[in-house]
């Protein structure tokens, strides 16, 4: 009797990514009622696509974040923001408008991100520094290195092909960035759901000791996860500069916490072992929608911050709860 009861309850429980998408839909429809919102289908689609494009950057930075958070043991990557800036700056300065340099520079960007991720992973696993502190200080180091190397002066140009693919529409009304995002989303979902890496990642997220005892090489897995996260963050910087057409040493900082919150809103458990990239996508769309909505309403910056914070609290209260002690 009791058993069937809990089973029916479970059936009706909506999954967090679905809830997030539902919230996103409602918010988007509501934005149509704003005085300077959309009036017809064409402008609605255009606006929707624009929001998706902006959300894609949060979601791609959030991809690495999702992996790190699933890996558990308070895993988090706070160096992602400054890595985005580094990726963007390297791309901006080195490519300097030259189409032929795109691939080598892309490799360099990914390797740079990977190396920083490697340092994060090594520090966390071998020096036993907590992920929060390790990646936070790494963010400072990266930021400091950027300031020292550029000395506040940087000049460059984004290659034309990048602009074509990322910033312009590839098909009518659909920006190229959306396709990049779909590819990354598919790869991430494949990585998490269908590969040995994904299985082991969830295993170490639930319990590192049992994972180790069942033959998972935990240290290698964790370090690898931080390497991937670093590479993804730098890659996101590469993409971002293709959209903004301009880089700066602080470009990525504003994306750090949105990427973490996107993961949380998407139902990935902050304590690890449970989550999906689909959720992060949904979370990123919700965050970008709220931000765009507040911008369209032309509220003062202060009110925007207050409303953004309160909405986040509200959303998280609705379904971001961890298991309570009594359960």
């Amino acid at each position, binding site marked *: 009797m009791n058993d069937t009861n809990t089973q029916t309850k479970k059936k009706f429980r909506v999954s967090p990514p679905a809830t997030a998408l539902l919230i996103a839909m409602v918010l988007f429809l509501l934005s149509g009622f704003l005085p300077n919102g959309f009036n017809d289908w064409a402008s609605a689609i255009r606006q929707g696509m624009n929001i998706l494009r902006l959300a894609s950057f949060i979601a791609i930075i959030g991809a690495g974040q999702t992996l790190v958070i699933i890996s558990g043991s308070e895993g988090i990557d706070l160096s992602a923001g400054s890595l985005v800036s580094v990726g963007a700056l390297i791309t901006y300065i080195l490519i300097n408008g030259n189409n032929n340099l795109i691939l080598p520079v892309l490799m360099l960007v990914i390797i740079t991100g990977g190396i920083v991720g490697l340092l994060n992973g090594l520090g966390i696993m071998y020096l036993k520094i907590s992920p929060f502190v390790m990646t936070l200080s790494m963010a400072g*180091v990266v*930021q*400091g290195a950027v*300031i020292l190397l550029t000395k506040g002066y940087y000049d460059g140009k984004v290659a034309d092909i990048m602009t074509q693919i990322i910033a312009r529409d590839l098909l009518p009304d659909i920006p190229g960035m959306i396709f990049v995002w779909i590819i990354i989303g598919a790869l991430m979902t494949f990585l998490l759901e269908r590969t040995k890496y994904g299985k082991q990642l969830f295993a170490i997220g639930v319990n590192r000791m049992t994972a180790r005892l069942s033959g998972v090489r935990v240290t290698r897995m964790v370090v690898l996860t931080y390497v991937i996260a670093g590479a993804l963050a730098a890659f996101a910087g590469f993409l971002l500069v293709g959209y903004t057409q301009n880089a700066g040493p602080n470009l990525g900082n504003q994306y750090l916490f949105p990427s973490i919150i996107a993961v949380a809103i998407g139902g990935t458990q902050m304590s690890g072992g449970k989550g999906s990239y689909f959720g992060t996508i949904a979370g990123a769309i919700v965050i970008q929608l709220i931000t765009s909505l507040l911008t369209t309403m032309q509220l003062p910056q202060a009110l925007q*911050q207050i409303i*953004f914070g309160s909405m986040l609290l509200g959303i998280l209260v609705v379904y971001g709860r961890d298991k*309570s002690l009594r359960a």
Partner: protein
Amino acid sequence: MPERNKSKIAQWWRNLNVRHSLGLSLILLVLTTVLYFILQPNIARSGTITRLLTSNFRTWLPVILVTIGQAIVILGGGLDLSNGSIVSVGNVILALTVTTTDEPGKNMLMVLVVIAFGLVAGLLNGFFTAYLGLQPVIITFASSFVYSGLALLLLPSPGGDIPREYTSVYRSTQVLGIPLALIVIVLAILIWSFFRQRKYGRFLFAVGGNDKAAYTTGVPVTWMKISTYVISGLLASLAAISYTLLTGSGLSSSGNDMTLASITGSVLGGISMSGGAGSVIGAVFGGIILGNIRNIISTLKLDSWWRTLVNALLIVLVLAGPGLINLIRGKKK
């Protein structure tokens, strides 16, 4: 699993390390302080040390106070990313309202308002994280948006003018040659050691160490966790008061840097990020170490482009220290 430390170090030293996890931060404290004093040109002249103590501690007090609050939250197994923005709100409120010495009653009231705000903000953080069981990192970050938005709303551009009479009291009061700020810190440590010996302290460490075990043994886990956020909010409001008295003006982003400083300070002070290990004295040490590092960098007259990197590298080195030592020791065995 961390290797059991079996080397032959003196008993008191082990005690300091294991029971209070203060060993490393004590070394750092002495090292950075000595280095700082060596770099001072007029150190031999009489009165220099007192002057330095006064000027340094009054500058460090806000950060040290938020670091103590952060340390207590971390000890209880949480994290407070909103304490800096609580400082901003307090600073803004005081800068807007305390403008003359004519109405001491009203000024006192505003100080109480700031403290009340800190308590309420901390209570909200505690309610969301401990009572509703939400993740501290994201919740306190979200609430920091609300608080810093509030600060920006109240004071869109820097301003405010605290009467000189008040600021000079904070800046130059000394009792028996001990600066006021140092007295406040010592008081905070004394209050902490009072509670540390009693039920509250034991409960706090139990909750931080393993909240499920604490819950099953009858510790009011939720209330303990909420209380840590309230204490952090209270200390943030006190930091706001001292910061306002230090600078004499208001800035809506005044506390922004303090959040991260409070976390690094806690870690430098030997507080374990996973909770349940550390002490408030460590947090004070951590705050002083941070201040020393900043002072050393500025007395070295480094090229300003180097500053961020050197600061960050020093902190990484300091954090890596104990791990490296353990790693090398482990290899030798």
